[in-house]
């Protein structure tokens, strides 16, 4: 059992299950972000566009992935805080 899972051991089953789902999504999105940052690709149809436009689209893609990860982390934090409040 990881430290994080250990910390969650006292939470209600629904919260633990939801946290597991969000952790899985964080891992998947982090992997996607890492791959994209190491080898940025261009969206289909944007191949011939000016480099500034392509760069700005790529920045948007990375930024949105980061925002999604933060959002999943917030959901986990909300679950933990809610469970503590109810205890």
């Amino acid at each position, binding site marked *: 059992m990881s430290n994080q899972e250990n910390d969650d051991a006292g939470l209600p089953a*629904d919260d633990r*299950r*939801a946290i597991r*789902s*969000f952790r899985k*999504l964080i891992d*998947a999105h982090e992997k996607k972000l890492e791959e994209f940052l190491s080898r940025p690709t261009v*969206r289909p149809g944007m191949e011939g566009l000016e480099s500034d436009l392509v760069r700005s*689209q790529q920045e*948007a*893609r990375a*930024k*949105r992935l980061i*925002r*999604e990860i933060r*959002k*999943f982390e917030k*959901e986990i934090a909300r679950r933990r805080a809610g469970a503590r409040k109810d205890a």
Partner: protein
Amino acid sequence: MMNRCDLRVFSDGAPPDWVALGKARTICLMGSAYSAEELVLRAVDAGAFAFVCCGELANQVEDSIDEVLERSEDMFDIMTTTHAGETVDDIAFFVAVALGGDEPFRVLAFVQSGDEQALAVCAALKDYVAVPA
């Protein structure tokens, strides 16, 4: 575990009446081939805060939704998720409990007749949420 939820299923390209639907806290459950730009933008206007993609084409569908959501920073906080390899019950739980939470919400499901997993998730959602008559 019972949330207040309104589940509406749109099959085989049947378009929602967006005006009648109005705006509400919305999760979109996406089967295959429903990632058209217009649908994504309409759903966002109708209050979509998450697009949950399941089935064999989940990754492609998520990619096409991301492509639309990346166009404006106003849409950066809208979540897209894929659930390849997860059980139907895990996906239904994610939608109804993990995302839905305690506040009322609705699920708009966009599916095709062949989307076995998405259709099974719709059926499973009925066990998780109180669907209005």
